[in-house]
């Protein structure tokens, strides 16, 4: 029986331009069976796509754009998480019997 599963690709870019450079990335692959090793920290040195735009051109759909950072007076120079984080998805078909 054929079923659909979701793959999530998270790309953090260097700025808010969707064509800007990927600086961090993760894949969560719902098509892999439970117990399978997913992408892990440190297992890749090159991102799967150079930018969000490149991923879109390969069929990934953007499902979340980050809000642009706001800079409160007195805290303008503070930093934390990677602010330009995009979530993309792709649906894939699996054979549920396998």
């Amino acid at each position: 029986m054929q079923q659909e599963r979701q793959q999530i690709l998270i790309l953090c870019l260097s700025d808010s331009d969707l064509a800007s450079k990927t600086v961090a990335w993760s894949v969560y692959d719902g098509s892999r069976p439970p117990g399978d090793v997913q992408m892990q920290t440190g297992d890749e040195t090159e991102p799967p796509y150079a930018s969000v735009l490149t991923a879109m051109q390969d069929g990934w759909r953007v499902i979340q754009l980050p809000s642009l950072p706001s800079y409160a007076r007195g805290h303008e120079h503070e930093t934390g998480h990677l602010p330009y984080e995009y979530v993309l998805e792709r649906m894939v078909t699996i054979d549920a019997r396998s």
Partner: protein
Amino acid sequence: MPVLDKEYLLTAQQMAEFVSLGYLMLPEVVPSGLNQAVHHDLQSYHGAGGRFWFENPHIREVFEIPVVKGALQSLVGPEPIYDHSAVHVVGPSHSQAQSYHADSIIDTRPLGFDVQAFYFCHDTPDEMGPTLILPGSHLRRVNTASIARYKNVAGQRRLACKAGTVVLMHHGIWHCAQPNRTETMRYMFKLRLRPRVEQRNLFNGDDVDDPEVRQLIYQAYQPWQGNEARLDHMARARLWRYVVGNDAADVSFEGAFARMKI
């Protein structure tokens, strides 16, 4: 405890590296015989990892080596407070990596910091799962595993090293354990220390005005920092001003401290 001779303290260049990257590697500073003794003791130790520091004389010797003690004194001052210690073990053929995290809880000190010393008593090549760190991440405000969904980050570095290496880390650095693809147990001993004193001017500052030292801070931009890179520069310039004990020191981005009267 007497203050060590300044030949054992960190130089300004080493301090600038720590301030900029959030860690400083002291390669092969522990002699081979002591490494072997600690390794042997760890292999036969069955107590709680947090007790090893209190029960094993060899591990205490490691932290009495002048170059190790001097480096720690340069960062957290003489007679730092013991916070905690741990024996971190990654078993043979362990395929699961740890998620990225920053240790402890969000630290509310504006500039003060704890140091975590990671001691590798045996050769720890890349395939054996040396700790993965993200250089330059130590001054970003995150909460423990709030960074866990980042799996790979440009510029991340596994601390592959030879036996006897001690890596000193700022408490805030993003890091995680890695899979061990060898058939041998991987050990790493961690000691966290916090300062009793303000961490100002604790190192050997003979080379503090060396242009190369300033350049280290100016040029420590990391590939993952993107549009925030100049803000990361400001953060390390603030920390530098603190550790050199000179509130007029200005290695900020385009002299922003002076321009903005910071």
